[in-house]
């Protein structure tokens, strides 16, 4: 990309569609904040309005119109452009703000499209700068070709900078060769259905229960009466009972099942995963089309997970973590829901040079893990047992015995199956009882390491180790103290002895 071809070197506005997007954002914000009020408004309109109510309504309407005006003005006062080494954004209606984001601070640029963007034929460009959450920048509406050119330009500048720092000739011939991308993986509709079936439906059920209760509480609050009570009084068949509960649970499960299915399909629709020499790119989504790209040298750790259902199909969920701002924000990581074992190996080995040949040595964790945590399972057993005894309720024996037995089995299996694998350059953990989660990271990516010892562990010369990278962390519980310290010493030696670019 030549500088002269770029049309964003002078301060300019966004595509005009941005006005529509600003207004849309505004309406969504209002609806989200005030929908109970609007509901009350709709259902009580037949009542006589008192003067105070009228005044309140007028205030709401005027406030609304005012904010709407502000949204429109905001568009005309939003300018952005690129300078030699930074992105500059001027914005603000009442308080003008000037944001300068040097390219070296920029971690990545994401092109995103929600339904509205697709209708208007524009994209939004989100600029992520690691380390400073709340300071990231989004340009709401751009022509796709502009957004792509901008992203390419910034990434190119960053690469040149990095090469100059590394002392390489920035005009090296290979750089000008077109970046060859190969399609690693594409999920068809059938693939997505299969993956959707193997998702965690219980999690969705939990979310549904939470949402429904939240909704009921909010509505009840707005109408100042107990909606559930009213409903039950009107329809006595809603009275809770054993069969009712069972039917409700069945319905909940079916709804949860279909919701996860639909969500999986829409979220990952037509997922395409590309690999080039420098990095990966992912495109997916039916309504909100998401494009994420990631440079290989920025990858901090890779994690892949299966569960019993997925194991039958030989599929893993793979997530590739890079440095992100704020806490673990899933949206910025590349995540592929259905990857075959061979493809996982490909991704891992091409991201982390030499990981295919790495000679790993395995270590188990101490059985004391079981001894420590089983105590927490015994506590509910004692409580239920005591309650059952005093209330003369033999049914309490079920949880009193169930907790320690099931919990104990889980703990025992977890301790038996946990493995820490170490090689000079890589660290890998494998954990899980029903499914298995494997995490792999290059040792030099570690940016902080913590050894924890409870009084229980100190008596037995054991320790837990936590390793943090800029893209996520790994925890290894109950290692022998000697091994934990040797690991800490080695990781620090490896990180400190060479000044690699780790992020």
């Amino acid at each position, binding site marked *: 990309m030549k500088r002269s071809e770029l049309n964003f070197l002078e301060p300019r506005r966004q595509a005009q569609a941005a006005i529509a997007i600003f207004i849309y954002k505004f309406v969504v914000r209002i609806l989200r904040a005030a929908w109970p009020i609007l509901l009350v408004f709709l259902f009580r309109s037949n009542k006589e309005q008192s003067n105070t109510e009228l005044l309140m309504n007028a205030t709401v309407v005027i406030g609304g119109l005012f904010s709407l005006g502000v949204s429109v003005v905001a568009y005309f006062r939003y300018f952005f452009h690129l300078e030699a080494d930074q992105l500059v954004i001027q914005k603000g209606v009442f308080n003008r703000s000037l944001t300068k984001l040097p390219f070296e601070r920029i971690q990545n640029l994401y092109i995103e499209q929600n339904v509205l963007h697709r209708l208007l034929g524009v994209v939004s460009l989100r600029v992520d700068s690691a*380390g400073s959450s709340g300071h990231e920048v989004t340009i709401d509406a751009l022509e796709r070709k502009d957004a792509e050119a901008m992203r390419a330009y910034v990434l190119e500048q960053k690469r040149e900078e990095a090469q100059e720092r590394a002392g390489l000739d920035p005009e090296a011939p290979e750089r000008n060769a077109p970046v060859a991308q190969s399609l690693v993986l594409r999920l068809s509709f059938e693939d997505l259905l299969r993956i959707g079936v193997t998702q965690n439906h219980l999690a969705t059920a939990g979310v549904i229960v939470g949402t429904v209760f939240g909704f009921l509480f909010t509505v009840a609050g707005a109408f100042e009466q107990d909606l559930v009570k009213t409903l039950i009084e009107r329809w006595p068949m809603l009275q809770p009972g054993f069969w009712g509960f069972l039917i409700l649970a069945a319905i909940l499960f079916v709804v949860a099942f279909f919701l996860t299915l639909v969500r999986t399909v829409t979220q990952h629709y037509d997922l395409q995963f590309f690999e080039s020499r420098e990095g990966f790119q992912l495109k997916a989504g039916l309504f909100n089309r998401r494009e994420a790209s990631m440079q290989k040298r920025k990858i901090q750790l890779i994690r892949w997970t299966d569960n019993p259902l997925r194991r039958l199909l030989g599929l893993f969920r793979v997530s590739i973590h890079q440095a992100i701002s704020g806490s673990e924000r899933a949206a910025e990581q590349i995540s592929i829901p259905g990857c075959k074992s061979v493809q996982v190996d490909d991704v891992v080995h091409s991201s982390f040079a030499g990981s295919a040949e790495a000679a790993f040595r395995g270590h188990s964790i101490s059985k004391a893990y079981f001894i420590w945590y089983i105590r927490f399972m015994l506590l509910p057993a004692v409580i239920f047992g005591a309650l059952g005894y005093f209330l003369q309720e033999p049914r309490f024996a079920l949880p009193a015995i169930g907790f320690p037995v099931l919990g104990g089995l889980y703990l025992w299996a977890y301790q038996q199956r946990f493995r820490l694998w170490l090689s000079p350059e890589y660290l890998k953990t494998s954990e899980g009882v029903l499914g298995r989660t494997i995490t792999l990271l290059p040792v030099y990516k570690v940016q902080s390491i913590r050894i*924890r010892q*409870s009084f229980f562990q100190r008596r037995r010369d054991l320790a837990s180790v936590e390793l943090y990278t800029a893209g996520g*962390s790994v925890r290894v519980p109950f290692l022998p103290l000697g091994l934990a*310290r040797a690991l*800490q010493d*080695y990781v620090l030696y490896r*990180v400190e002895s060479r000044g690699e670019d780790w992020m």
Partner: protein
Amino acid sequence: MSLEELPSVAEVEWQGLDKAYLRVDLIGLWLFRLGVLGVFLAYTFFAEGFPPVVRWSIAGLWVFLLLMTTVLRYLGFRIKGYAVRQHDLMYRRGLLFRSVTVVPFTRIQHSEVEQGVIERQFGLSSLSVFTAGGSQSDLVIPGLKREDAERIRNFLSQKVAADEEE
């Protein structure tokens, strides 16, 4: 180089925190806990029909826990300490649950010296060290003399700048 020859975290000379920090810590603890207790008592006095037995047993339990915490903080104070090594910064804490955190200089994004209201009365500061990504791996060393905190901060920023030059 074999594993045995590596500099070991097991043989670190720990620098204790400034003695005044114990007082800062305990004053903060008591102010907060007694404040909560005060609000609770005020509320239950005005709320009708709150049984006094329940009120006083909750208050008693609260004070007992406060005394326990005070003892633990007092004993835990001598565990707290930091070490500035050749290539990294270490911090140790925890009486019952001990933790030792190490952040290599090369992985520090930036550092700050902060001073709370109570700390200021005793001329103490805290040093916060930030790494990239999440906040999990950030490190805070409290209870440093203002000058010490500034000195370490300057030392760190020199180190960080020197690493970027290389």
